[in-house]
């Protein structure tokens, strides 16, 4: 068992172990092992406006995607989980459809359709397309949390004097907040590393980091790509580690706040 686990780990980690050293390379193109080590390409990444612009674009687009997706998928989850209506099954399928449609097909569709709407090469276009593909994962995350949500605590809140809005604010929202945060992060990440659609419709004005990486790989195998990859990796690791630390702290705090039973 541990051998299989080790092989899998190696498969997952090997590309990373190649990329990280290459990002510190002094070679003029991607080369492994690197002939020497330095911060040349990190300097290039932070000074070149093509890269910084793409980073800013990616952050803006991923943030807006997260907001738009949540605004659509959260109410949809509530409606589908909590109410019985005739088109419920159909709605569920529609919400999950982007999950089964190949991204390349979606991308082509957006390219043609958004072209006629003059939405290609705009934030709006990319955000709409990314929101569409993020809806299934947000819907699945939120509806799973909602299905496991004990509604008797909402009834308890009502019974104790809270009207519908205050029930949501004081009970439903705080209890579901971790699921909401997770869902919003999923949408953000989905948009942040989405490549196919970005290549088709983001154009130069709204180019995202993955698109810029793709362009620069195609033209020159620029080692800055390794820098970007390393930074993306660092961000993900920091994010996961950060959430673990927060959870651990919260647990420790809860333990500390328990008074010693007399």
């Amino acid at each position, binding site marked *: 068992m541990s051998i299989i686990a080790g092989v899998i780990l190696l498969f997952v980690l090997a590309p990373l172990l190649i990329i990280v050293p290459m990002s510190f390379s002094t070679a003029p193109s991607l080369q492994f092992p690197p002939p020497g080590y330095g911060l040349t390409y990190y300097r290039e990444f932070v000074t070149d406006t093509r890269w910084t612009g793409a980073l800013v674009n990616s952050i803006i687009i991923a943030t807006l995607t997260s907001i738009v997706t949540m605004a659509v998928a959260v109410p949809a989850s509530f409606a589908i989980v909590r109410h019985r209506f005739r088109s419920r099954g159909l709605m569920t399928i529609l919400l999950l459809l982007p999950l089964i449609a190949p991204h390349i097909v979606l991308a082509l569709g957006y390219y043609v359709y958004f072209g006629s709407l003059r939405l290609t090469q705009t934030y709006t276009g990319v955000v709409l397309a990314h929101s569409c593909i993020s809806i299934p994962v947000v819907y699945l995350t939120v509806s799973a949390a909602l299905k496991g949500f*004990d509604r*008797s*605590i909402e*009834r*308890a*809140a*009502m*019974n*104790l*004097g*809270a*009207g519908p809005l*205050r029930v949501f604010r*004081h*009970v439903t929202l*705080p*209890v579901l907040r971790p699921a909401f945060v997770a869902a919003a992060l999923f949408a953000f990440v989905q948009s942040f590393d989405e490549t196919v659609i970005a290549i088709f419709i983001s154009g130069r004005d709204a180019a995202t980091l993955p698109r810029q990486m793709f362009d620069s790989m195609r033209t020159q195998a620029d080692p800055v790509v390794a820098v970007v990859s390393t930074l993306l990796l660092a961000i993900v690791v920091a994010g996961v580690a950060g959430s673990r630390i927060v959870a651990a702290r919260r647990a420790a705090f*809860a333990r500390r*706040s*328990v*008074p010693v*039973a*007399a």
Partner: protein
Amino acid sequence: MSEVQPRVRDADDAPACTRAPDYLELKDVTKRYGGTVPAVNGVSLSITKGEFITLLGPSGSGKTSTLMMIAGFEEPTSGEITLGGRSLLGIAPHRRNLGMVFQNYALFPHMSAADNVAFPLRMRGVARDEIARRTDAALASVGLQAFARRHPREMSGGQQQRIALARALVFEPDVLLLDEPLGALDKSLREQMQLELKRLHQRLGITTIFVTHDQGEAMTMSDRIAVFNRGRIEQVGTPLEIYHRPATRFVAGFIGDSNIFDLAIGEGGATAVSEMLGSFRIAPSGLAAGTRVRLMVRPETFTIAANARPGEANLLEIAVEGSVHYGDSLLVLGRAGDIEIRVRLPNVQASGIEPGRTLRVSWQPEHAWLLPPEIEKSPAFD
């Protein structure tokens, strides 16, 4: 502790001169969920102020639906519910001022015990320092002051249950609703909580509606019990009335053990006859000869025949099939003719009772209960 006491109702709520005996009233309440059989079918019930009343019945009998309609989570399909003379219908749950303890306690998982208890006060806009004072008092009244800052997941079932109770009482509700609150607790804790609830009720004098399917719980705690079956109330009465004078066969069977004999009234109305078992004396019934009746004899009513007063008692020969020891008593399972009979004897009398033997028992006519002839109002009685 006095902080948790229900506020005396304002004069306009309950005029002092006419203390309305019926405080909470259900009139012909019916709830239909779409099916052909209503979940609650024409339930009428009058509850007096300060009373501890239990809605008892098997699952699906309509007791919980009735409680949900009182709490306002469900609206009756028809009928009327009034509290202190005012209709509750159309009033949202959060405006009804009823405290409720839910089956699983329904504590807010993201709040500490103190915040849970403070919640109804916050919703009512009570001043901050008064919230703190009343929350402390409520926690003290359930003995959990030291646990104020713990979260529900860090507390035992019994502690959560007490917090839920404190939360339901801290805002001085008009009525306390308890939805099978002891169901999730283990046996010894359940018995302890029964006593605690009863004591709390005596101290606060708050009108309490308790829903349970546990007849023992209903017997020990209630001023009155309303027995539900198939959406209807079969009988309302004190625990002793329900136990000794059940109105229907269902009630006789649901509360306690019972032996039921199908008989026909004999000449003169003071005997009842079974083709197989012969004639039994009964308390004078006033019923015409030939009327089909059911006679209920509780298992503990029987005594061993040698101890019976001759001439007055009814005798029965039972073919013993088995027995169960309860320490303080012995339950004998057997048959008389084709009727299954259960006899509960004090342990001192229980020797030499073995399967295959015949046991002769007797009972005094006045200790058996003739079930009123049942008008076939519903197919509920088989």
